[in-house]
């Protein structure tokens, strides 16, 4: 194991014992004396290496085991088996020392105290994390100004809107300058402007403080905006771990270039111009043509260079599968050889 890994997991597994009830009254009576359990493996032999300073997107469908993984990584749950070191700690066994080095934001659950003003929550966290007052003050001031939460500080948390609350949650999770930040659905239910604000903030934090960020989300645009690396989970197992560009290249399918020309062009003309490129042509209507580029192989500029010289083009459109489509496709069809 390398000392530097922010997250090191090998064979990480979590099993839950689920109580199965029998049907009917007689069944319920029998359950009293003889219970049946079923073992559910929520997370199965996960291997994960995350370097300090990385921003990683952790995605998966509901019930894929995302939350369970995050809960093991943050020390909430004890793994059933496997090896786990986060920031050099065993998260569950060394919990109290370990959690000082991480920040956690669960989008669906507030980390702040519901009834007290935001600044009081912050002050209490300062005491909980034993942050020196000077350091606390300067750091807080910066975050307040970047996240634009100055005017919210004296309001109780329960009076804040979701977007306002989320910005305060982020500030709260970073007060003690954690090296590693876990974000579970940080933008769920937020409008576009707030999402943008939060993404910009996360990028800044990552660049300036070198904070490692692990992000779970349903919103693929979060990942596109923030993460260069994606880890994809399905039925408790990792099915993809790599760069977002690679994911698009391999599973993005063919790029489509749609052309509309001024005059009718023979399809063979197009074909002869691009005979050395892996491109297939098709005519889809009057003066309308589509070129399918084999995935990742050809630059669009290569293709256009050969076409635009003497063919007057009226309209042009490049279509590419969005990350969201790719992810959906992978979940539906599975990865051929993962």
């Amino acid at each position, binding site marked *: 194991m390398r000392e530097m890994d922010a997250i090191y997991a090998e064979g990480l597994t979590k099993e*839950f014992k689920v*109580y199965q009830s029998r049907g009917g009254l007689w069944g319920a009576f029998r359950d009293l004396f003889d219970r049946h359990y079923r073992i559910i493996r929520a997370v199965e032999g996960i291997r994960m290496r995350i370097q300090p300073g990385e921003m990683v997107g952790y995605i998966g469908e509901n019930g894929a085991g995302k*939350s369970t993984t995050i*809960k093991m990584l*943050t*020390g*909430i*749950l*004890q793994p059933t088996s496997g090896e786990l070191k986060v920031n050099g700690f065993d998260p*569950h066994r060394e*919990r*109290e*020392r370990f*959690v*000082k080095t*991480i920040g*956690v934001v*669960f989008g*669906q*659950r*507030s*980390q702040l*105290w519901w*009834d*007290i003003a935001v600044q*009081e929550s912050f*002050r*209490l966290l300062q*005491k*909980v*994390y*034993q942050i020196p007052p000077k350091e606390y003050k300067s750091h807080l001031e910066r975050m307040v100004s970047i996240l634009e939460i100055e005017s919210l500080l004296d309001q*109780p948390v329960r009076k804040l809107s979701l977007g306002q609350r989320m910005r305060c949650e982020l500030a709260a999770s970073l007060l003690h300058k954690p090296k590693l930040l876990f974000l579970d659905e940080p933008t769920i239910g937020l409008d576009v402007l707030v999402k943008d604000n939060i993404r910009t903030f996360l990028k800044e934090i990552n660049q300036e403080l070198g904070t490692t960020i692990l992000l779970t989300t349903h919103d693929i645009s979060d990942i596109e905006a923030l993460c260069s690396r994606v880890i994809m989970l399905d039925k408790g197992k990792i099915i993809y771990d790599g760069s977002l560009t690679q994911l698009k290249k391999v599973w993005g399918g063919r790029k489509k270039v749609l052309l509309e020309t001024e005059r009718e062009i023979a399809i063979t003309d197009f074909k002869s111009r691009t005979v050395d490129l892996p491109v297939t042509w098709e005519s889809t209507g009057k003066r309308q043509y589509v070129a399918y580029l084999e995935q990742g192989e050809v630059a669009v500029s290569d293709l256009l260079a050969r076409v635009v010289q003497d063919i007057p083009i009226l309209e042009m459109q490049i279509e590419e599968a969005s990350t969201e489509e790719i992810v959906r496709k992978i979940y539906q069809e599975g990865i051929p050889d993962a």
Partner: protein
Amino acid sequence: MFQLQLFIEYFKQYLKVRLAYRWDFVVQLGTDFFFQAVNLVFILVFFGHTKTLNGWTQHEVIFIYGYFLIPWAIFSAIFNLWDFNERYVIKGEMDRILTRPVHSLLQVIMETMTPESLIGVVTGVIVMGWAATGLEIEWAWYDPILLLVFALGGVAVYGGIFISLISISLFTDSKSDLQPIIYNIGTYGRYPVNIYHRLIQFVLTWVLPFAFVGFYPASYLLDKTQWQWYALITPLVGAVYLGIGIMIWNWGIRYYRGAGN
């Protein structure tokens, strides 16, 4: 003393919240006083009918009851965890607790404490004082100190058993109704144990040692030499049971499964 400082910070926050809802606070204070007054009248009326109880005079029984109210009030102020299962386990608030660098039980206690319950101490002292007028108690200079130590021992006994019981919620994800069992805790230990069957006496002393909360310490103050040694080991019994409670809690945290989402 990081924990103590933190406790004070939480207490300040608690006060701020209470003061933010001024009228709530006033009304609550009013009802608390009213409740205590009713309690007082009830005690006097109830025991007014029983002249002696298995060798105990009316005043002695009231004295024990009054003493019992002191550890009970302190216990209620610290351990207000009746809805622990619902609030922390089923709703998953425990997740948040576990991502903070302070012992989980301490955090839960600090978040839920209700210092206003301490008002019961006043009621207890009044009841004891009233009962003492009909008794000839010789107070040694150290008796008030012992009383406080015994009371804290009693709080530890209750606390330990209470923590053990709520810890069950950490092991199982089903909604278990522990409230009635837990609530009944309050009713033991406020009467002389020798009015019960020997078996119950044994249970109340060595298994669920509620007799250490009220009866043994109070009888020490009543100068009943028969139970003197029991009274003196109250802090020890308290420490043991609190220790067991905390151990079971720590063990349960390993089994905590979190709320599904």
